[in-house]
């Protein structure tokens, strides 16, 4: 794909995103906003999993940390614009603290460590009622107000979330194009070779993990004003697995993978709701079919078809079978 064509597609997508909610009622706008927020969360996990090759089952707990910090600060009267960076910073630091010991282990073991961390965060949120409201949660968080632009209504909040998502995507674009990004990929494709080339693999992996966690925190900071109610159950392990599914269905290691994956996981059940009692069964079956036939994710479908038609074109060998526990 030429850079010009890519730019055109991105502009078209952006125009589509701006036009998407127009003429729709609140429910559709709410679902589209959730899509944006989960795109940010899975973008973070995509950095850890797709680019740095480390599987994490704790993304929902970083969303929780971001969401609770934002909720507590905004309920105390702070503006979202101040609360959000603090939430991000906290997630980055926790990501470093967790990553430092956790990244000594890899693959299955790292998955278990992050799984335990997710459970730990859930239990802390539930049992420390004095701070987090326990299982009753926190309610009534305000949506940010920027003078002339108030996001109290659903449509302005969608555009606000879209703007944050675009900024987050631009930052991610910068990260994966930077020398760090190259190092992440080198690490995933061949850690021994990367190390032999002078890449400090531990530091780079840790950095990917912490940045990925901060993206989870940003998603959390947006969930708080969207739902205006948070409780520990919304950040349990099942939600981490859901974010993992988004990354894998979309295409781990592809920049637009999370956008597609979050779209499938959030929008597909909604589209299927007309089947009433069967929609979750059909949805699960479709996900299984997708994972069997396109293990490299939906975004890789084009590349696979091209490889079939023009076999000389090289596909990325590491992505041919999708992300796996190594």
């Amino acid at each position, binding site marked *: 794909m030429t850079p010009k064509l890519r730019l055109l597609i991105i502009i078209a997508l952006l125009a589509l995103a701006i036009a998407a909610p127009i003429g729709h009622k609140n429910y*559709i706008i709410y679902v589209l906003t959730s899509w944006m927020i989960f795109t940010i969360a899975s973008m973070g996990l995509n950095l850890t999993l797709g680019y740095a090759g480390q599987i994490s089952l704790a993304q929902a707990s970083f969303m929780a940390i971001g969401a609770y910090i934002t909720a507590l600060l905004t309920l105390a009267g702070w503006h979202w614009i101040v609360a959000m960076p603090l939430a991000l910073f906290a997630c980055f630091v926790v990501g470093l603290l967790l990553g430092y010991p956790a990244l000594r282990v890899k693959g299955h073991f790292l998955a278990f460590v992050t799984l335990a961390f997710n459970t730990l965060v859930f239990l802390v949120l539930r049992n420390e009622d004095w701070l987090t409201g326990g299982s*009753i949660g926190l309610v009534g968080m305000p949506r940010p107000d920027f003078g002339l632009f108030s996001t109290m209504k659903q449509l302005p909040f969608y555009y606000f979330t879209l703007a944050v998502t675009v900024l987050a995507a631009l930052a991610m674009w910068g990260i994966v194009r930077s020398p760090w990004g190259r190092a992440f990929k080198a690490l995933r494709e061949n850690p021994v070779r990367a190390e032999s080339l002078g890449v400090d693999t531990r530091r780079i992996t840790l950095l990917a993990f912490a940045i990925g966690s901060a993206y989870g925190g940003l998603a959390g900071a947006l969930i708080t004003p969207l739902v205006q*109610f948070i409780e520990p159950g919304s950040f349990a392990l099942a939600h981490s697995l859901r974010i993992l599914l988004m990354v894998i269905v979309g295409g781990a290691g592809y920049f637009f993978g999370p956008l597609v994956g979050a779209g499938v996981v959030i929008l597909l059940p909604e589209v299927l709701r007309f089947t009433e009692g069967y929609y979750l069964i059909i949805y699960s079956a479709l996900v299984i079919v997708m994972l069997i036939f396109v293990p490299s994710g939906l975004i890789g479908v084009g590349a696979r078809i091209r490889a079939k038609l023009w076999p000389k074109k090289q596909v990325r060998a590491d992505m041919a079978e999708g992300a796996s526990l190594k």
Partner: protein
Amino acid sequence: MYRKYLLAISSTLLIGAGAARAEDTVKLGMVVELSGAGAPAGTNWRDGVKIAVEEINAEGGILGKKIELGEYDTQTDPQVSRALVQKAIDEGAYAILGTIYSGSTMVNMLVAQQNSTPQFVGSESPSIVQKGNPFVFRTSSGSQKGIPALTNYFTDTLKAKKVGIAWVNNEFGKGGHDVFASEMKKTGIEVVADVSSEQGQADYAADIAKLKQAQPDAVFVYMNQEESARFLIEARKQSLAMPLVGEVTLTEAKVVELAGPAADGAIAHVGLTAAATDVPGIGAFDKKFEEIFKRKPTHDAIKGYIGTWTTKYVTEMVGELDGEAFAEKMHGLCLKAADYPKILLDTCWDGKGEMSRPSFIVQVKDGKAAVIGTVPAN
């Protein structure tokens, strides 16, 4: 009498408005847990609502308009439930029926409130009516009312000096636990074991062992359906001897079905029970439900049924589809079963949407819940 009078007026108005108007429908949005952890409660609620809708439509609908029921599955996820209440309102729902899990209700009732849409909920967490939302109404009293009704049973009948509490640590269990613990403190009964468990927990061996060791005179069990059943099975396995007393869920049809013989002997205070067949309305509902769905209705089914019928009664009192007038009418309203038979029991709502009506103490005997006492409305 009053109802007949209203019906006469509304029919006249309808005839005046012409045939096209007569085809109009009233949309009700049933937003409830049809999958996930809350499915046993949610599906019963749905089936109760369905029976009510069928009956109401057979009698000519609400204000002469047929009910069109929208079904929305929250997957027992509060965030999804919020989105679906929004969807139901977007699609023109005049009132919302659901949700049952308090965590979901806490978040979605804000949406109904913003749109001035009345909402009947099956949730029992005390905080729901304490938020000052004028559009939310319960279909059973909250645990802050239900549990104190049980206190006398502990002091007078069981003559307990020390008790144990086994509860599920979610917003439902936590609310009940706190009310019960403070009630016990007030009456001077010592809580010798306080055992919390997780939603979806499979193994209750350690919990039962702990209770056994503490040797209380009775144990208060406050969990959702599936957890209650697993708890009862384990209690039977380890021969836990003291009476197990619960609120609402412990003796429910679903629990009895899942726990089998292990449920025998369990006692509970319930706001509503299909076992109260002496009450004519409940007896008829129980029979009809079993005929259609081939299983016993739970209290959630009766709650859904009552919520739907109340929507009809109150809307016809107001005389038009106006959410705000509906909410205003509901506050301080008392409906007598003699005048409004489908309300089943004399019921009142206070200024906050909390309700009161007579309730029952039931015990499971030979796999069936039987009423062993009644508690007057408080």
